[in-house]
């Protein structure tokens, strides 16, 4: 049987195909299916789904890549694409925060809080220093945000390692603490409130701390996108090419075997959570230094990057490349369905943002369903062969 085969049995090939190309395929299928169901909803509201999706697509600015889009249309496509990429930037980082913790066997729901802590740290550092050369100032802000996110998430890791407190609970609680402390800081005379005592908004970051604009004029795309792309590379290398990543993955797959192998499991929980928080914290820094420049009280309530990051990581299957495309999809969807982009003739304006939320939710649902399918597939094979256990097809790292 499989023992007799040389190096690669047929199953091996199948399972490799599945985790490689197949994993990619199922993610695409989940997205396509979500858009299809979303289209049915558009039909139910009495609109043409093709026209609606066309308008959404145009709203994302992705049509900028088509050479035949020219003139005014090209100009507005560029504006939209800049928006899409600005939104994509922090999503990449909050998704990495979920993914990295996940590879260590933890579910980090705290991306949102870690993002806020990073954002506020960068805001503070960006405000208090003046007259500093820009590269140095940006660097200080980013490092501060990374450390801030690291400590914030590290608390959850420490609580798990020391007391066995479940990270889902502790990160959710840390989210609320970050949210309300963050709110307090920018209103009612909080330390970070701006000069007008009646306006619940923070001071601005100094010009020397602002990230370099790289494309556009109105609200230009900033250099943070490069930092986000670089973070993807760091994530991949850290996980797959370092002893630290080896330990994190070993603990994530099988803590008992990791311990037997001489790995300190508790240390890895703290470390992996800290690194996860570092990614999210950096995401906050890029937003505040890149285009927000200050934080108002209602910015807290509309922000959901930490939570969308969970969906991005899920769809991207915790892989760097997958996260890149998933973040782009979710970023584009958010921009494309904003009421500003979608006219009432294509889709009811008051429902526009709901459509994007709905499609996001459907994608998560279908990715989740795929896990079920994989489970059923395994169950089917269990009755297959005598004593040899067939290679388990796994939902990629999930």
């Amino acid at each position, binding site marked *: *049987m499989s023992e007799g085969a040389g*190096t690669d049995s047929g199953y091996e090939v199948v399972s490799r195909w599945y985790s490689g190309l197949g994993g990619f395929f199922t993610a695409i299928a989940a997205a396509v299916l979500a858009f299809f169901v979303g289209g049915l909803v558009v039909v139910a509201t009495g609109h043409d789904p093709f026209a609606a999706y066309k308008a959404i697509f145009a709203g994302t600015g992705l049509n900028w890549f088509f050479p035949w889009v020219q003139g005014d249309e090209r100009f507005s496509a560029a504006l939209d694409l800049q928006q899409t990429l600005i939104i994509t930037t922090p999503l990449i980082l909050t998704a990495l925060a979920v993914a990295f913790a996940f590879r260590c066997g933890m579910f980090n729901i705290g991306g949102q809080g870690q993002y806020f802590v990073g954002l506020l740290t960068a805001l503070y550092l960006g405000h208090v220093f003046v007259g500093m050369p820009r590269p140095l100032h940006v660097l200080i802000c980013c490092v501060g945000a990374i450390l801030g996110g690291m400590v914030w998430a590290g608390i959850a890791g420490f609580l798990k390692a020391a007391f066995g407190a479940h990270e889902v609970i502790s990160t959710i609680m840390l989210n609320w603490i970050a949210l309300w402390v963050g709110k307090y800081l920018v209103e009612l005379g909080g330390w970070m409130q701006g000069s007008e005592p009646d306006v619940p908004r923070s001071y601005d970051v100094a010009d020397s701390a602002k990230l370099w604009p790289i494309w556009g004029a109105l609200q230009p795309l900033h250099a943070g996108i490069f930092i986000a792309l670089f973070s993807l590379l760091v994530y991949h290398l850290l996980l797959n*090419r370092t002893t630290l990543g080896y330990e994190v993955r*070993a603990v994530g797959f099988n803590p008992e075997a*990791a311990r037997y*192998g001489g790995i300190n499991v508790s240390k890895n929980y703290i470390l992996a959570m800290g690194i996860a928080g570092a990614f999210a914290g950096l995401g906050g820094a890029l937003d505040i230094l890149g285009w927000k420049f200050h934080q108002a009280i209602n910015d807290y309530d509309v922000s959901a990057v930490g939570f969308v990051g969970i969906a991005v990581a899920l769809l991207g299957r915790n892989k760097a490349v997958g996260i890149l495309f998933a973040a782009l999809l979710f970023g584009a969807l958010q921009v494309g369905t904003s009421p500003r982009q979608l006219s009432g003739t294509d889709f009811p304006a008051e429902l526009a943002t709901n459509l994007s939320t709905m499609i996001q939710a459907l994608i998560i649902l279908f990715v989740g369903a795929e896990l079920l399918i994989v489970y059923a597939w395994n169950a089917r094979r269990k009755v297959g062969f*005598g*004593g040899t*256990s067939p290679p388990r097809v796994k939902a990629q790292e999930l």
Partner: protein
Amino acid sequence: MPDSLALQLEGVTKRFGALVANDKIDLELRRGEIHALLGENGAGKSTLMNVLYGLHKPDEGRMLLDGEEVHIDSPSQAIGMGIGMVHQHFMLIPVMTVAENIVLAAEPTTGPFLDEGTAENRVRDLSERFGLAVRPDARVESISVGMQQRVEILKALYRGAEILILDEPTAVLTPQESSELFEIINSLKSEGKSIIFISHKLNEVLEIADRITVLRRGKTIDTVPREGATEDGLARLMVGRDVILRVDKTKAEPGDPVLSVEDLRVDDERGLECVRGLSFEVRAGEIVGIAGVDGNGQTELIDAITGLRRPRAGRIVVAGEDITRESPRDALDAGVGHIPEDRQVRGLVLDFSLAENIALHDYRQEPDSKYGWLFPKRLIARARELLKEFDVRGGGPATRASALSGGNQQKVIVAREVSRDPSVLVAAQPTRGLDVGAIEFVHRRLVEERDEGRAILLVSFELDEILSLSDRILVIYEGQIVAEYGPDVSEDEIGLTMLGGKKEATAA
């Protein structure tokens, strides 16, 4: 008609893609016969039974039940024809009672409700008739594995099984439970049931079966009566070559003590003292076997030596280094190698590739890594060498560990532990669940490592294994060493001390 045929399989072939799992298999089951199906892991035994039970559709061949050709498309059809199966992994619902589980899918009802009383009575009748003592009102989750197996058997009988398939039934049982099971099987036979007994253990097949059919690589090799069959002969049929069941070894030439354990006391998870003042030494170049019934402190002892559990008191010294309260990594660095009891939980990260698994202890050192930077190519190169040297089949360095058979997984672990050149090798149940070919490999390798001058501590519940490998035997009972024997002690004598029957140590 004691000799009439209950079941006949003719030329049954089952393919999975390019793989032929069953290749023109013939099998005859007589009425009232215990027929063993013997073969290594992956020889096609379970596939064949799944074909019979309607879980797989055969590609070729005929099945005759009481002389009439039948087609079985689903387990419910198989049950309807009087075929019952007890799977290796039980299909019981833990929160339901024994009676509820047994009558499931054929419940006696009063109106829309389950008639608990009738169900329990029927189960009681059935269990008395076949001598299978169970408590009908006990919840399945609260009864032992051996009991759960009886429930599975009763479930099949309740549904009118005339032919009963038992898929490696002893794999999950203690020796005591196994012998009880054999009594049950014999009483079923005397009631006229026909039994197919799937196994890869030679001794049990010789104990229980009337006839034995051997499968190898999906083919029927031979069917032999028990009379005249020997372990060696069956092993040859199974593996296709001569297998040395006796371990060939020269007399040990022990050197200096490498592992010494002094007055060790270790608690279990509940804080109960499980190792209670235990002392012994293992010298270089000898195999010391620890014999004992499961649960007498063996696990805690191993965990303490390997750093996985912190002892309450005592001293553990490896090659002159005190590692009593050190971490698993310190124990590894001091020269302890460990073949763990549970290879899938502890020994391997199943989702890691073989190369990554082989690096599990050494990934922090050169050449695997430098300054925290890992070199996957070097991991793969080293894995490739070791997989070849240890004859691991079924995958290469990039294959996930979960894709290998149990025997090959164990070879990977042995390769990893031995290649680190440990001064002490702790082997816990090193051959559990392996087939004869793999057992032979592991045993031979342990003796070779002994001859290389390592100190080997073997912990096993299989007395045969202890007796055939050890140069010295220590008997552990309730966390203490109660006796020491030389290699030529009789099985009976050890067996008695294992149960606490004799406490004074006999000098070797």
